[in-house]
């Protein structure tokens, strides 16, 4: 418990995502990516969930880009990542993200087509909810 250390949370998420075989991990948004890749985006923070700065609530998106929309392999990879034992399981394996938080939960996932550097990619965005 304590105040949100976003840097430590990013690092913890990065460590968790690197356990996914073949996934390139960026703990900050980047200009260009090579799929499959995960990008830890910028958080929303709700301060003061308890008295005396005890717990903050952080919602941090993690975007996972798998490849071109028309690629069969990319679609299959997306199915793997968005299953319950995919990205969600990897992130929640260590409930403290290496001591960066009190608990972590991947609350939801939404698939989409993302345009990066003029190229459309098949992607999934995970909503990661963290209690500090």
């Amino acid at each position, binding site marked *: *418990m304590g105040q949100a250390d976003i840097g430590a949370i990013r690092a913890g998420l990065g460590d968790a995502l690197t356990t996914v075989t073949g996934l390139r991990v960026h703990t900050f948004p980047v200009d260009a990516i090579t799929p499959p890749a995960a990008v830890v985006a910028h958080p929303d923070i709700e*301060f*003061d*969930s*308890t*008295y*005396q*700065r*005890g*717990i903050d609530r952080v919602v941090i998106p993690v975007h996972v880009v798998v490849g071109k929309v028309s690629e069969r392999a990319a679609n299959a990879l997306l199915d793997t990542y968005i299953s319950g034992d995919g990205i969600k399981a990897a992130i929640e394996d260590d409930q403290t993200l290496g001591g960066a938080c009190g*608990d972590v939960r991947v*609350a939801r996932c939404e698939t989409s087509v993302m345009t990066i550097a003029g190229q459309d990619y098949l992607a999934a965005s995970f909503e990661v909810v963290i*209690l500090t």
Partner: protein
Amino acid sequence: MPGSFSKVSAFSLNGQDLSSYVNNVGISITTAEIDTTPIGVVDKTFISGLNETSLSVSGFYASATIGPEGVFKAAMSLAAPVAFAYRPTGQATGYQGQAIVTSYGVSSQVGDYVAFEGELKVSGPVTIGL
């Protein structure tokens, strides 16, 4: 200047500061009303009776000895009242006294955090120093 955010509130029980787990405390102080209305009058009259004070406390569950689970259960196991302190504005003495724990429970709803809830009944006077 009126108004305070409750982020500065503080609560402790039996010497353990539980503030960082707690997100809601309510204190209720009631006085018994004793009807002194004589026969033959139209308007009722009353005097104050004995005071009774209770507190409800809720927040994030933690199983640690120094967390709500450990502190509330330890207090429940004691015959004698234990000290409590509730400081709504985080300053001065707030409400302090001795109390027994009359209930403690845990709940967990999917999609939300694991929560605890406890009830205290004050034994003896409450010192108020807001």
